[in-house]
């Protein structure tokens, strides 16, 4: 699009694509009639109905139409822009059209799905929506993506198995790493564990990894240190770290959160006293230092978890209990070991095999009823056996509680440094539970290990290695390219009331004390539009959603 004296000199040539979405749209409204109608709208020179516009052939049709018909606006009426806008806009760009001249209309979620069985109504509404979309498209302006530089260094918060693995992998990919651990020693929870499932010493294993990481050139490993401040944005974060000696400032491009979790130790839980009623973590320590002494052991699973106050399953406690009961049984074959459980969470291949082996060793597994929790008293545990439907009693001289890993008490503090969210259990909240398990919604920040949700040491290591490639996908590029749909504040009309400052959730607006107006930091802006809807002088606008663009859309109703 060329502009001359602010006027469009080029004639509008709009192409409209109506998607059937298989039968999702076409099953409930008349796509053919909507397509014919779209052809009658002002500016529209090309229309096409596709079975699946998002299929490779659908995309090919858009691109061919842009080239063959010289389209300078494209409107796709299909599904949710949330999932498909980037695809369509990107495809337009590949065909040579400015992607910001693309407009999307949702005739599935907002039309066919909500008006199922009312074909006429749905068809009429789809026509209205398409007309509005076309009207808005005619007011769109071309934009250029925002570009920014990248610092090829990564801050890793937490020096447990996940953080160490992440640092190892990042350095192995040729990137620089700043690894910060709060404790005096690297290693995290694994330092306190006894043996791993393989029989190897957990401490030896983690110290070996810590030593390797500590001696890798390119990794600055800071123990006994704390990140105190983080400002900036993807590619250019400014971080401040308090080491035992000094305060240091660094610039990093990405951040990895690997701050882990802690085992729950709750006094009084099932009579927990740290002596003859202990947690698995305390048992690990006893097994490690050789102070373990008991002949009748009862383990209680889901102690303090999967209840109304802490609803989640902590994933790793069943395997821990099986591992420890096997260690006990192998060392003291005459010991009685009972595991009281609700569901044995021995998922996958190796863990289930452990469960078979544990039964083979003579460890007994009994199901208790979550409605009637086991009662621990001196020398015995009484519980309701939910498979047999009767009350049973086991004598014991040691009760081991399999308590969950819980979020670190300082997790909210760490989260606040980066303004990333945590879930209701205090664990860090990833961008998408299924498809983006290692990403935060905020760009350039990643999560791995038990900081996200309890994981075994192997899983933590896997995730630590995994974030490295997520980081690499950003930092191996020459520069950062970002959507131009951001807010803009007109310095001429801004009165500096700072109303926008308060509503911006991304800290993207600042007040310039010299000019007395508010300014947008484009790279931080996510285009939510809060400022634009708040500004009393209409100085703040959101590109791509300017008042005149929205009004054109509304007037077309």
């Amino acid at each position, binding site marked *: 699009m060329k502009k001359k004296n602010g006027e469009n000199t080029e004639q509008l040539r709009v192409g409209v694509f109506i998607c059937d979405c*298989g039968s999702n749209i076409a099953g409930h409204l008349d796509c053919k009639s909507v397509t014919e109608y779209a052809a009658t709208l002002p500016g529209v020179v090309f229309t096409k109905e596709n*079975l699946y516009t998002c299929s490779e052939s659908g995309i*090919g049709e858009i691109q061919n139409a842009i080239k063959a018909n010289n389209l300078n606006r494209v409107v796709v009426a299909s599904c949710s822009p949330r999932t498909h806008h980037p695809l369509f806009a990107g495809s337009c760009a590949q065909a040579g059209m400015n992607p910001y001249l693309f407009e999307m209309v949702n005739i599935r979620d907002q039309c066919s799905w909500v008006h199922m069985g009312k074909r006429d109504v749905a068809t009429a509404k789809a026509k209205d929506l398409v007309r509005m979309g076309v009207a808005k498209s005619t007011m769109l302006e071309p934009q250029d993506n925002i570009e920014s530089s990248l610092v090829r260094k990564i801050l890793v918060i937490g020096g447990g198995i996940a953080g160490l693995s992440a640092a190892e*992998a990042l350095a192995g990919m040729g990137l620089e790493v700043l690894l910060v651990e709060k404790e005096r020693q690297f290693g995290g929870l694994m330092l306190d564990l006894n043996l791993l499932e393989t029989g190897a010493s957990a401490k030896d294993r983690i110290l070996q990894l810590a030593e390797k990481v500590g001696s890798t050139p390119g990794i600055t490993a800071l123990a006994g240190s704390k990140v105190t401040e983080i400002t900036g944005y993807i590619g250019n974060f400014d971080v401040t770290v308090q080491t035992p000696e000094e305060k240091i400032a660094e610039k990093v491009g990405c951040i990895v959160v690997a701050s882990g979790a802690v085992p729950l130790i709750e006094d009084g839980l099932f009579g927990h006293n740290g002596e003859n009623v202990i947690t698995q973590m305390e048992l690990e320590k006893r097994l490690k230092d050789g102070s373990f002494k008991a002949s009748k052991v009862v383990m209680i699973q889901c102690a303090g978890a999967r209840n109304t106050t802490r609803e989640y399953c902590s994933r790793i406690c069943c395997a821990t209990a099986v591992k420890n009961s096997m260690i006990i049984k192998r060392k003291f074959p005459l010991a009685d070991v009972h595991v009281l459980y609700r569901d044995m*969470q021995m*998922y*996958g291949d190796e863990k289930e095999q452990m469960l078979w082996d544990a039964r083979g060793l003579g460890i007994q597994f009994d199901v208790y009823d979550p409605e009637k929790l086991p009662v621990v008293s001196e020398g015995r545990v009484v519980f309701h056996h939910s498979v047999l439907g009767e009350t049973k009693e086991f004598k014991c001289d040691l009760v081991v509680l399999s308590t969950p890993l819980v979020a670190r008490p300082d997790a909210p503090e760490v989260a606040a440094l980066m303004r990333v969210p945590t879930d209701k259990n205090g664990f860090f909240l990833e961008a998408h*539970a299924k498809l983006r398990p290692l990403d935060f919604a905020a760009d350039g920040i990643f999560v791995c290990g038990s900081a996200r949700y309890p994981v075994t040491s192997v899983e933590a290591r896997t995730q630590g*290695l995994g974030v*490295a490639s997520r980081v690499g996908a950003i930092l191996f590029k020459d520069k950062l390219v970002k959507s131009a749909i951001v807010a803009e504040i007109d310095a001429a009309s801004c009165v500096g009331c700072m109303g926008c400052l308060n509503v911006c959730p991304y800290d993207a607006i600042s007040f310039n004390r010299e000019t007395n107006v508010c300014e947008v930091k484009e790279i931080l802006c996510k285009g939510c539009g809060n400022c634009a809807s708040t500004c009393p002088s209409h100085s703040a606008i959101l590109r791509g959603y300017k008042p005149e663009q929205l009004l054109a859309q509304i007037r077309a109703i």
Partner: protein
Amino acid sequence: MLDVGRHPNIELMAYSEVEKVDGSAGCFKVRVRRKARYVDESKCTGCGACTEKCPTDVLDLYNESHSTRKAIYSWFAQGIPSTHAIDPDHCRVLQGKKCGICQKKCEAGAIDFEQKDKIVELNVGAIIAANGYTVFDPGKIAEYRYNDLPNVVTAVEFERFLSASGPTHGHIDRPSDRAVRRQIEELEKEENKLLKALARFEEKHGRTSAEFYQNYLPGEAEGDQAQWAGKYGEYLSIKAKLDELKKKAETFTTAKRLAFIQCVGSRDLRFYPFCSGFCCMHSIKEAIIAHEHENETTSVIFGMDIRAVGKGFDEYKVRGGNKSNISYRRSRVAEIVNGPNSNPILVYEDTREQVVRREEFDLVILATACAPAKGVKELSEILGIEINRFGFFKTSPDNPLDTTREGIFVCGCAHSPMDIPESVAQASSAASRAVQTVTVTPEKLLKIS
């Protein structure tokens, strides 16, 4: 999938197989067979005009054989690449018969019956095996009668039933009911043919078939009367059968009483000792979606443990119980037998009451095991890597993505059974290991010198 397909740094080779791997980490030479699809990838636009006109119906494996596709097809509508392929086992031309309709219909001129397999040599630094798993064949468990009872299906089949673009358009129609409806359709076709034949007789003789048949005596048949009577007799018997089936079909409803059986083929020493990890969650998910489709739906999930292990999974399980009419029953189902109306009856032990119960359901869904991928042995030989005692690629806890050969990595269910988030995380990890293999660091240079 589309993002991967569009990525400038990714070259996709669908319908291809690795045949040989030479070399070592950093410089592998890989021989790939690109199988003939009889459609030119560079010309096909994926428009689908060929499939519309192809006369050959083939069972659609994507829909678990609950619908048909054509001999020229794409695996599913949004598949990548959208290039179609011809199924050589069913295409009339490739079977030596006359046809070639697709070739005439293809405006892009993409159909090439002469296409041959192509061999491609690739030079790569690292290899990632992500060849997934195979769904266990529940027919091997005789007592569940999967092959005999139409209303016993696998979770993948049920997944297709729930899909709006699946064979039942998202309605949970029972396979036995669908079979009756298909039978009705076929009988109606025959009935129409007979009606046409009868109409010819009626026109010729000027009276209705019923009138003729009433007075007809086989012994005194003249001219074409015996034929007429024969056709009318056939018509009557088909009509009677049709009426009966139609009456039966009127009572059909979608399946509302669902039973899910967990650990079908897994945690079972006869087949696979391991736990497949993700089936408890997909049974819960399917029961919740079925309940969303129809609010009267009730589901019983039979399992030894309900392994809802993952972020938010246990909460999801509890919610399913509270809001979606799901009950969880701790039991290993002993047998499935046929009941009235083709309703499967489950025989299981109620441990609480310590009695054997029989319970009737509309549809039974089997949570089948995540078995090692078909051909995993051959692939392990080609790649030169070991497999573990469970049949998956061997790794170590210290290096969970590394196989026994340097530079070859594994992720997803080729590694061990796992759910989606874990597969996604592992895929990132395998990518990171692969990048480390091909990255030149000062350390590596030192090693070489």
